[in-house]
């Protein structure tokens, strides 16, 4: 993968890392009442949209109210998964000491078990971001997105398999969890029994979710049950398509880079910051868009500071962008349409072997390097620094 960011020297990297630590300190000092009020407000919105959505689906007699109810329920599920679930389970609100927003007890409205998710997402994905073979989120073990991944004939179908995944994303998220747990066991220790144990956790969650959406609520509607089943199905699907779209824009856009396990050996905290920056990409949009994306629109900020309350990413972004500019680092951002198109282009291009993929990429503009870093490294042993 070619980089368009300037390669930084060791000292420059450390200085970059230090500036990011400074931002973190500044922001963490401000975390308090506002953040608590924010998550409580979102929680309230999630509860009300669910009540209203399910109520409208239940009592609707014509398509418009049914449609509004379905959209509200979908919105409720999106809020629950994105702005509440994802962020709470990162421990962003553990400091509140409120059992509703504690990463240890939170369980979300999706077929993925929260404990399995925390393992493969919080630990594996956030530690080994975009490291091929370690970060199982990179292509989710079936999509080829870079020339560093070996091509197999099955990749020819990845346009279709991804389209399928988009509509059933929650199943992908859930099934991914137990498989990552299993794959992380040393090969010798892997047994059918352990796989079954991991899978049962997933199956249990599936059962819980399916009964809720397709048995419990439909039964409440009596003979009107098909309507409720349809509404729930559509709401789940809208949520799936939305989360898929947001999440794929996070790491698979054109200039999001990958790394090899060798590259991250002896990585310092500052190196890790650089890798998070190079591997992630943002989406620009409105405040409402940020909220509905669970602030994953600020993927870069999220990867730098996964445990900082999400609404703070908006104020971090301009500062971070300025630091990136100063150090000649690419700050990957763009509109949703642009980023999403890039993702699909990548899925398409890399479904072919490298030779064809290169040709397809050939008509892309030459890779442009970012301008020279505008930093002056001060030699700390310089005499000028010693006060006279």
């Amino acid at each position, binding site marked *: 993968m070619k980089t368009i960011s300037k390669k930084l020297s060791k000292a420059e990297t450390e200085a970059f890392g230090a500036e990011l630590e400074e931002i973190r300190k500044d922001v963490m000092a401000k975390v308090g009442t506002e953040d*608590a*009020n924010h998550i409580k407000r979102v929680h309230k919105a999630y509860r009300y949209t669910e009540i209203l959505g399910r109520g409208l689906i239940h009592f609707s007699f014509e398509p418009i109210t049914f449609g509004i109810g379905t959209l509200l329920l979908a919105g409720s599920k999106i809020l629950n998964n994105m702005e509440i679930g994802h962020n709470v389970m990162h*421990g962003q609100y*553990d*400091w509140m*000491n409120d059992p509703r927003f504690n990463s*240890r007890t939170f369980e979300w409205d999706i077929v993925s078990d929260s404990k399995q998710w925390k393992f493969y997402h919080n630990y594996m994905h956030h530690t080994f971001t975009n490291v091929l073979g370690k970060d199982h989120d990179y292509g989710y073990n079936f999509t080829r997105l870079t020339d560093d991944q070996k091509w197999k004939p099955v990749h020819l179908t990845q346009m279709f398999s991804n389209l399928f995944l988009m509509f059933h994303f929650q199943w992908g998220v859930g099934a991914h969890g137990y498989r990552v747990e299993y794959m992380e066991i040393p090969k010798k220790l892997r047994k059918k029994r352990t796989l079954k144990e991991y899978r049962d956790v997933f199956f249990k969650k599936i059962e819980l979710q399916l*009964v809720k959406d397709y048995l419990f609520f439909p039964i409440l509607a009596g003979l009107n049950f098909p309507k409720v089943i349809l509404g729930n199905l559509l709401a789940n699907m809208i949520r799936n398509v939305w989360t898929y779209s947001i999440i794929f824009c996070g790491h698979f856009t054109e200039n999001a880079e990958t790394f090899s396990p060798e590259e991250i050996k002896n990585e310092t905290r500052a190196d890790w910051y650089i890798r998070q920056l190079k591997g992630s990409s943002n989406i620009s949009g409105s405040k409402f868009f940020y909220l509905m994306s669970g602030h994953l629109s600020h993927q870069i900020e999220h990867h730098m500071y996964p*445990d900082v309350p999400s609404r703070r990413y908006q104020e971090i972004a301009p500062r971070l962008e300025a630091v990136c500019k100063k150090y000649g680092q690419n700050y990957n951002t763009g509109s949703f349409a642009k980023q999403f198109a890039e993702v699909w282009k990548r899925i398409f291009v890399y479904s072919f072997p490298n030779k064809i993929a290169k040709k397809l990429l050939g008509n892309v503009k030459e890779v442009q390097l970012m301008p020279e870093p505008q930093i002056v490294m001060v030699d700390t042993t310089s005499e000028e620094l010693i006060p006279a």
Partner: protein
Amino acid sequence: MKVLPFIYNSPKEYWNYFQPTNWLEFVLGEINPLYSVSTAKAKVIAIHSESADAKTIVLQTNRHWKGFQAGQHVPVTVEIAGRRVTRYYSLSSSPSAKNPTITVKRQKGGLVSNFLNDRLKVGDVIELGQASGEFTIDPSALPDKLLFIAGGSGITPIHSIIKTLAESNYKGQAKLLYFSRFKEDIIFFQSFAKLETGNSWLEVKHVLTDVPSPGYESGFLTTELMDKFVPDLKERLVYLCGPAPLQTSAKEFLKDNQVISELFLLPTQIQTNYQSSGPVEVVLLQSHKTVLLKGEKSILEELEDQGIYPPSGCRMGICHTCTCRKTSGSVTNIKDETMSDSGEGNIQLCLSRVDEKLELDF
């Protein structure tokens, strides 16, 4: 039931997954912040100044609060800067009063005591736990002679007990020895004056430790003072509540007495000046994190210093909110300096100091 095996095997777990209580709690809370399915909550209906730096907070509780016995304490949870914090306070009213009260003295650097004194308003809703504590009096077997020794905010449970005695037509004889720093620092001065005039069995003596004032005894607990005030000390049942130095010196005098005492340790007072030999690795199994802790403060505090926030409550070992499973390694109990074994077991994070490499199911 092959179709739904998990629900069939654990229907209760499934029912909980629906979050019925959370939903009800939410809906009730939207109607009235005092309503709840199971949580005891209270609305502040009045706040009185009790001394230079103590306030009495009058509470209107909801039906989940089960009342208390005179002398007991209650966990109070408030939200400060978005964070829920819990501290224990003794109830200062008599149990028969319609609205229970707590009396809170400002502690130097204390988070909650200062918040309650400065920021709490009439109309605010706070969360309560159930009352507990052994610092109580048995109404069926009241002793003939009683002595109460209190210092500072230690007077609050004693105030409750004496008020209760007054209500129950106590026939014996009781004396109260109360140490305050200066005249304006005396808590319940008016209330005790009223109790003393209305009840011939009660005798109150105020002692000022820091700033002497005419008409008041000054100094600390001495043999002279004890001999003069309670010549019949040996015959009395003693209730003792106050700061640690007072309790230590009082217990010297009370070797032959039956003493019921209560010592509230503030979170900052539990810390010892223990010097550890160096940082120790602590593996957090669920979080997939390994952190280095110094072993100088409690594990709870050291984790918080690193930005990791385990659920916590009273921070003095009473409420068990921070209880956590330890799979290996040993810890020292800060309160009594005992060391745990290195096997599996539950530890209270607020009371444990790390000794050797730990693995926590957290």
